Structures are given as C-alpha cells and as structure tokens.
C-alpha cells in the first residue's frame, strides 16, 4: 500500500470521542477542569488548522525569505518561552546569554544539519527547513530552560559554598564548576533518556509521520537517527554555551559574587 488514507471530516470528528470520554471522567469525578480541557482542545484544533493552511502556502511559495522569516519567528517565541518557563528571577545579563546561546547553538546546528547531513538543495527548501528547524529549536528550548533554572537555583542555594571557595582563592569558574556541570547534565539528560527508549518504548513522532505517509521505515529511521543526533548536538551546544557564559553573570569584574543578581 502506498500513500496515506485520507481522513474525512466525519472521521476526524469521530476522534473527538476521546475528548468526550475525558470530559465525562472529569465531570463524574468532580475534578472540575472541563473548561481548561475544552479550551486546550479548541486551541489545538484551531492552531493546527491554521498551521496546515499556512504550511500549504509556504511549501507552495518555497522562498528563502520565508524559511528565514519563520526561523526568526520560531527563535523569538522559543526565547520568550524560555523566559516564561523559568519560574525564578533571571538577571539581565543572563537573559542576554540565554538569547545568544539559543541563536548561536541552534543556527549552527540547523545549518550543519541541512547542508552536510541532509545535503538539502536548495538550502531553504521549506518542506525540510521548517520542520527540522522546529524540532531542533524546540528541544534546545527545553534543554536551555532546564539548564538555566538549575544554574540559577544552584548558585542561589549554594551561595555560601561559592563564596567559601572564593575566599580560598578559587576563580569564579572553579567555584561554580560543580553547579555548572550539574546544570549541563540536568539539561541534556532528557534528550539522552529519550534516545534510550526510542524504537522500543515509543516510535518518535517524525518517524511515525513519515511511515504513515508511505515512506519506507528504513528511510524513516535514517531521518530519525539523524535528527536525534542533531537535537543532541544542538541541545549540548546551546546549553554548554549558556552555562559557560551564564555563571559569569553572577560575578562582577572583581570576581565577587553579585548578590543583586541572585
């Protein structure tokens, strides 16, 4: 069988049965989240419909400015999302570091991935460019949020230890080494864990999509392996840049801990 079975509107509506089941359960149990669930489902439906039309248009036009424009748009929202995800105070300098690390790490990975790994021609082919950039940016966003939160929290909660190390003549780099390493590890662990279960516990979304649309599973896994490595690379690069520059934002030029930045 080649190609994909088209889902008609009626069939799609039939899928909403799952939502009805959830609503029934929450109502019966008095959980009281019906409004939230309905709203989320509605948002998901509308956003995806819009996205579907937008993508049809974008793939059709296939202009390099569109690819770049969407890349900028995705980066902007990813960075904003990082700020809102981190529930503790982020100092101004660290905000700049987060932005720079995200832009640097993801862009570098996307360029390498599209040009070297996939050998995309033309380089801006929207059908590849957008979903791949999306996956790389999305995963890096999660990584950097985790890493930054760990970094801030680590320096805050181990302030005495950091100052104690400084008192004994440690450089800020040495004084925060454990915290920086912890933050880096915390940020890349989810990516590493997801690789462990891949193909056994779950079939990743991109691969599933490709298989459903008629691509050979062997091609699909090639893409999946490549994108997983790309994600790993991007998460590592962005988080490494962030923690390596980030710890410095808590110190002044006299190697003193800036209590105001905590």
């Amino acid at each position, binding site marked *: 069988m080649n190609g994909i079975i088209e889902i008609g509107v009626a069939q799609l509506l039939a899928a909403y049965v799952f939502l009805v089941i959830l609503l029934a359960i929450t109502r019966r149990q008095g959980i009281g989240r019906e409004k939230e669930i309905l709203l989320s489902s509605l948002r998901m439906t509308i956003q995806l419909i819009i996205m579907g039309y937008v993508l049809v248009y974008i793939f059709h036009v296939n202009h390099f400015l569109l690819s770049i424009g969407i890349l900028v748009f995705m980066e902007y929202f990813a960075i904003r999302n990082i700020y809102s995800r981190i529930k503790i105070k982020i100092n101004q300098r660290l905000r700049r570091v987060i932005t720079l690390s995200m832009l640097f790490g993801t862009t570098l990975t996307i360029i390498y991935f599209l040009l070297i790994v996939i050998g995309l021609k033309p380089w801006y082919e929207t059908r590849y460019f957008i979903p791949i950039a999306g996956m790389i940016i999305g995963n890096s966003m999660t990584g950097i949020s985790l890493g930054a939160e760990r970094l801030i929290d680590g320096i805050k909660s181990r302030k*005495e230890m950091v100052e104690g*190390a400084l*008192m004994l*003549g*440690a450089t800020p780099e040495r*004084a925060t080494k454990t915290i920086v390493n912890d933050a880096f590890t915390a940020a890349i662990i989810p990516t590493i864990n997801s690789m462990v279960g891949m193909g056994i516990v779950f079939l990743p979304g991109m691969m599933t999509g490709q298989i459903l649309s008629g691509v050979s599973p062997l091609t699909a896994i090639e893409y999946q392996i490549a994108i997983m490595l790309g994600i790993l690379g991007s998460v590592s690069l962005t988080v490494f840049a962030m923690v390596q520059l980030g710890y410095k934002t808590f110190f002044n030029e006299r*190697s*003193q801990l800036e209590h105001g930045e905590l």
Partner: protein
Amino acid sequence: MFLLSDVTFKNIINIEKLRIPRNKITCIVGESGSGKTTLLKLLNHLISCDSGEIWCQGKNLKEIDPVLLRREVVMLSQAPLIFPGTLKDNLLIGLDFSEKKPVEDKELFELLKSVKLDKDLSANVSEFSGGEKQRLALCRIMLMEPEVFLLDEPSSALDDETEELIIEKMVSFTKKKNKTLVIVTHSKRIAQTHGELTVTMDKGKIIQVEEAVK
C-alpha cells in the same frame, strides 16, 4: 600589612584609619553586628568598599588581581565550609582552589593529629560534628600557607579546651612561618592572651586600638 583609610561599606563599616601590622596577631573584637565579619570580607576582597582606600603591602586592593590576592589573604568563614567528598578531598580542596600542588598523606596525618582530629582520611565529612568541621577547615587553610590568615570566629563551635588548643596551634603556626593572623573573636580572653594588637569595633567604627605590652 593592611592600611585602611576612610573606608565605608553601606552603613555597616565606617573606618577612618586602621593599620594591621605584618607578621603580627591582630584580634578584632566587638559586639555582634559591629562590622567585624564585613571588615574581614573587605580585606579578602570578597566585597569592595563603597568609598575610601584599602592597601595591602603598599598596593591598592583595587589594582591587585582579586583571585591572586585571596590566595595570599585567605579567609575562614564562621560556619565551616564542607564540600562533598572525603576528609582528604576536603583538606586538599584549598590547594586545588588556589592551584597549588597537593601534599603527601603523611603531612595531612600530622596536621590532623596536631589539631586532635583523629579521623581516617577517607572519613565521611558530613558526619563530623561542628567542632570537627571547624578544625578541618582550619587545617585546610594551614595547608595553603598563605601570607595572611583571616579567621572569623574560628572557635565558635568549639569547647573551651579545644578552642585554646586550636588558637594556640594557629598562633604558633603563624609565628613559625612568619605569617600574619587576623582573628575576629567574641572572646576577650583570646584577645588578651594572644592579640599583639586588639582592635575594638562598634557600629562599624574603630573605637579602640590597643597594642599589647610584651
């Protein structure tokens, strides 16, 4: 060793003039909240003064590399700092921080014995009592052999007998190695017995400087 002139820090410190001599034992006494710890932090350059100047051996603190300064002007905080790892790791971490060569186990044993800390080098430090941690922290900085020791209430977690032993040890170590020792203390007795210079602070000001007649 140090010279302070018109030094202020927030509304905690306001020192017109203070000279801390080299190769001497200086004790800083005063009520809690009088700015003693803040003064030590200023000397260790963990904080910078808002106005005024601090000189260390004729050099303005602002012009000295802060990290290199702290390797020669080492400060011991009141609450002893414990890092993850064994007793040996904890002893050697000061040398590691200041990028100095680690010492042989034999030397560590001798040092531990001299402060009556009879423990195995592989001992788990997190199980130590407050007094034991304090003695470990003292050994850690003695290994570093800096020019200046700044001790913030080094004996607060110790009983009288151990306190006397530790201070005695620090004083003789300082004298033997020709170093400078500055001790912040609550104890008038320590100041009277060991202080060659006793500086009394009150509300951030120096209210008395007394030189011991020997």
